[in-house]
């Protein structure tokens, strides 16, 4: 109970801080607007500066300095991101326009700030904003107002954070592209995938775990991102050059671009042919989104892979040349579709899905690719919720390197026997370790967010 109250308090403090930040941003922008038009000593300028001063005085009573930052158009207060609503976007854009012109990323107001410091700052702003070299404002002595070109706080992220953040970015970008029908800017996706690829060296299991997040409904963004990272790992395991790894991952990312949001509503009566038509129209829509004449070979490759990935499911008696890229996408794609809830069905546990896929190796899937996928994802794929022989619940953490130990991965126990709270890691492959996996469980039943345990 007390924990809950504490949490509420900190959340309230956070919200409060964000409110102050928004107010500060709005005031700074208003002041900059006013002094762009009027003299600093003009009454209206004085009024807004005074208002800003009052706010800063109140804040500086509690802390040493107040830092308003703007990186790439996103405003931060003392390094914490401001939670903005629609109505604040205009202000944020204006702030960005002012600061970028001056090449300033941070304005910091130190304790003991006086009105003349503010006045000095705005005078300097007036002086430099139209100068040929506006960044010279950085050299001005402005008392307790300090301007910085780069953020003072170090923003170097740990690989885990990079993985989480960039995966989230990948999903959001892809969802945006699927939903908004905007042109696909491949370079952005390539950049994000590259960061993921770079940060995941040595953390491959985490990257697999990323794909195990809960999805509320059929989500093209998450499906594409999951297939992209899985196929990236497969390509890496194959020892392909970096550029090809990314190309393959991009193929995975866009393989279902067209079908992303067009699942049949669950209430609709099942009809195999309409599902098939829907599935077959997926690659068509992907192609229509991606291809333009004259055809770009890179994009064509991706679209062909997307088509090949699904095609054998209904290819007729005539054998078609199915590219390896398509065959490589088919396995993670099927795995993801099988394991994720497609309401009303909750999806299969990962190991069951993998079993189903390996039964199809040789007919529906390329057996070599299935083995490769297994080597990357594991017998109990990373992120599978399992019950151990001692009655504990655990999350599979990694893939044993020795195939003979495939069924004995490292497991993070998240619930002890008898539903007690627990948090420790056991390596089932350790000599003398008696615990074994007895069953895989449906993580939706226990309502646990599996990746949380992988990343915590």
């Amino acid at each position, binding site marked *: 109970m007390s924990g809950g109250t504490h949490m509420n308090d900190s959340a309230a403090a956070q919200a409060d801080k964000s409110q102050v930040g928004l107010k500060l941003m709005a005031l700074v922008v208003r002041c900059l607007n006013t002094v762009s038009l009027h003299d600093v000593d003009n009454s209206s300028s004085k009024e807004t500066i005074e208002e800003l001063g009052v706010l800063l005085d109140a804040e500086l009573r509690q802390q040493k300095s107040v830092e308003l930052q703007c990186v790439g158009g*996103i405003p931060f207060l003392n390094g914490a991101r401001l939670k*903005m609503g629609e109505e604040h*976007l*205009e202000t944020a*854009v204006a702030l960005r326009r002012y600061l970028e012109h001056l090449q300033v990323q941070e304005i910091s107001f130190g304790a003991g700030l006086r009105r003349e410091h503010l006045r000095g700052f705005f005078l300097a702003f007036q002086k430099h904003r139209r100068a*040929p*070299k506006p960044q010279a404002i950085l050299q001005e002595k402005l008392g307790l107002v300090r301007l910085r070109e*780069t953020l003072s706080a170090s*923003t170097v992220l740990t690989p885990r954070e990079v993985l*989480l953040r960039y995966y989230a970015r990948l*999903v*959001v*970008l892809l969802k*945006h592209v699927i939903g908004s029908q905007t042109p696909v800017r491949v*370079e952005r996706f*390539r950049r994000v995938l590259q960061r993921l690829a770079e940060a995941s060296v040595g953390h491959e299991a985490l990257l697999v775990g990323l794909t195990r*997040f*809960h999805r509320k409904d059929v989500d093209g963004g998450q499906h594409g991102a999951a297939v992209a990272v899985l196929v990236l790992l497969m390509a890496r*395991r*194959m*020892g*392909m*050059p970096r550029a090809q790894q*990314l190309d393959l991952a991009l193929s995975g990312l866009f393989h279902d671009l067209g079908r992303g949001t067009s699942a049949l509503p669950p209430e609709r009566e*099942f009809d*195999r042919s309409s*599902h098939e038509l829907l599935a*077959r129209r997926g*690659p068509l829509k992907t*192609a229509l989104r991606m291809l333009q*004449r004259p055809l770009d070979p890179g994009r*064509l490759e991706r679209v*062909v892979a997307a*088509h090949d990935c699904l095609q054998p*499911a*209904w290819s*007729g008696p*005539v054998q*078609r040349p199915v*590219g390896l*890229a398509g065959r490589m996408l088919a396995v993670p794609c099927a795995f993801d*579709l099988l394991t994720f809830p497609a309401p*009303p*069905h909750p999806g299969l546990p990962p190991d069951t899905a993998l*079993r*189903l896929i*390996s039964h*199809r190796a040789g007919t529906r899937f390329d057996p*070599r690719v299935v*083995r*490769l996928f*297994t*080597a990357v994802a594991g017998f109990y794929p990373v992120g599978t919720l399992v019950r151990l022989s001692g009655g504990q619940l655990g999350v599979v953490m990694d893939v044993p390197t020795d195939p003979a130990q*495939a069924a004995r991965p490292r497991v993070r126990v998240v619930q002890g026997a008898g539903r007690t709270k627990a948090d420790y890691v056991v390596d089932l492959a350790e000599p003398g370790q008696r615990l074994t996996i007895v069953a895989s469980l*449906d993580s*939706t039943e226990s*309502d*646990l*967010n599996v990746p*949380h345990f992988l990343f915590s």
Partner: protein
Amino acid sequence: MPVSVPRGPSVLPTVGAQPIQTAGEAASEVGHSLSKALNAYRFYAEGHASLVEVQQRLWEAMHRYHGVSGEAVVLHVRSTMLVLRDVPLLEVTSPRDSMTRPLFLEGVQEVLLQPGLEQDELNAFLSLWYRALQRTLPPEYDFYTCFWERGFEDIELVVAEVPAAVEAGSDAAKDEALLAEREEQLFAELTRRESSGRGRRRPVGHDEWLARLEAEVLAPVNAQDLTRSDAQGFAGATDAELAELRALMERERSADGLHERGLWMVWGLLAVCREEERAELLGWAEELLAGLATHGRWTELSQVVQGMTRDARAAQARTPDLYAVARLFFREQMRFALASATAQPGVLLKVLELLSVLPRDALQVAPELVFELPSPQARGTLAKLLVRRGIPLGILVPRIASLNEKDLDWLQPLRESGPEAHALTAALLGHPRPQVRIALLSRLSPKDVEQHRSALLKLLADPDPGVRGAVLVLLVQHGVEAAVGTLVARLEVKLEARERMAVLRALADLGGPVAAAALRTTFEREQDIDMKTHCARCIGVLGDPRARPLLEAVAGKLFAPRALRQACKEALAQLAPVGG
């Protein structure tokens, strides 16, 4: 010409006349050489001796810096300059003109050049940097991604988290801000301990779900597939297998099978497209076909068409698709590719093989292609193929002007194929080029002469003397007496002596009272001695007894030229006796 560059540590940098003492001096030297090297790219192509020289100097300067300072060259990237050991390098006033612009914009904070850096690697990095400056990086790439993919060994970048550059316009900025907001939400969701529980299992739908997967993913699904099996099945992938997959992937990327697979894809998509999407798909198909054709992949093209035909036979609904794709072979771009390919030795047969597998429907427009093929042999073979497939070649008649005399060889069987081919011969007789008309005349059979008599008679007045001569010979050869009238009329026209003689001789050969009368009249009226002599001989050939008095009068004339008298005498000897 590229100059060979000595590699790596084999070339030790020579210390200049003034030995460098401090790290600061070494840093300035690095900056100086770096600026020179980046500038040199503007003037010299990769591998040019001058460029190689400045690259070499930069590498030497770096090497010296490594030697003096004992540490890596760490270039701190600022918006308007680089900083190395507090020494500003490449400084400019505006970030727009700065050499560091592409690096700064992508959040590169530091460039680390480790000791042991090889010159090739340094050159590759500089070239990448310059391309980024010039915005000539490959499409879909930015500087850092390119750098990463290249996998430099001794060059590292420290890159800060920088949101993607936003295009101008507040809408784009708003979009970016919204995306960032969503990203933040998702980030929070991802790291939550408990899931929201909305994915909770619901009892219904298992069978439907499996059936749906069957449609989309696996076909078909059996219940026993889901039963548990041992771990032995999961042997992992062996190194040999990985190498095999890698090689396969490599081959797939390098070979130009992409067009072929692309074509199959379009064929697959055509089956499920809507009417309004069809044009787009066919546009891609056309481009892919042209791609295959320009790469000379005729066998693959034939195989694809055969596969499509099999599909269309298996499913009636696909026939219109097949026709639509096949018709693309005769669109402008493809026709051009086909036509130019046939000029290469050995390709003609492959092209014909391809055309022979196309459905008849598409071949209806194929006669157009005949006119675009460069060689008469190719045209002939194609025409034969079309005839065999029962394609009417009626188009040849209106466009006959595009063919030449060499085409007459292959046109011969077409002309002789039946009464419907008469129009073709008639068109050839009216061909604008006299050479074609002449060549044709020599190939006409008695039947043709009979059939096209009136056209031939018209040719007697053809503007080209060669044609007139040839038709004259032909008519005489086949004894077309109907020509006499026209020939007589020709005598009224002013003709060259030679031709006039030929006409007279033709009249003599054809014979008949009209010809005889015309010869007599001509003999009487003619003033020219040579012509008159010739005319006398012609009368002799004809053996017209009614000309005897005329001939005798001239033969007996005392002052007539000797040749004329002689000719008259000879003619008289040839004449039939009066009433005989």
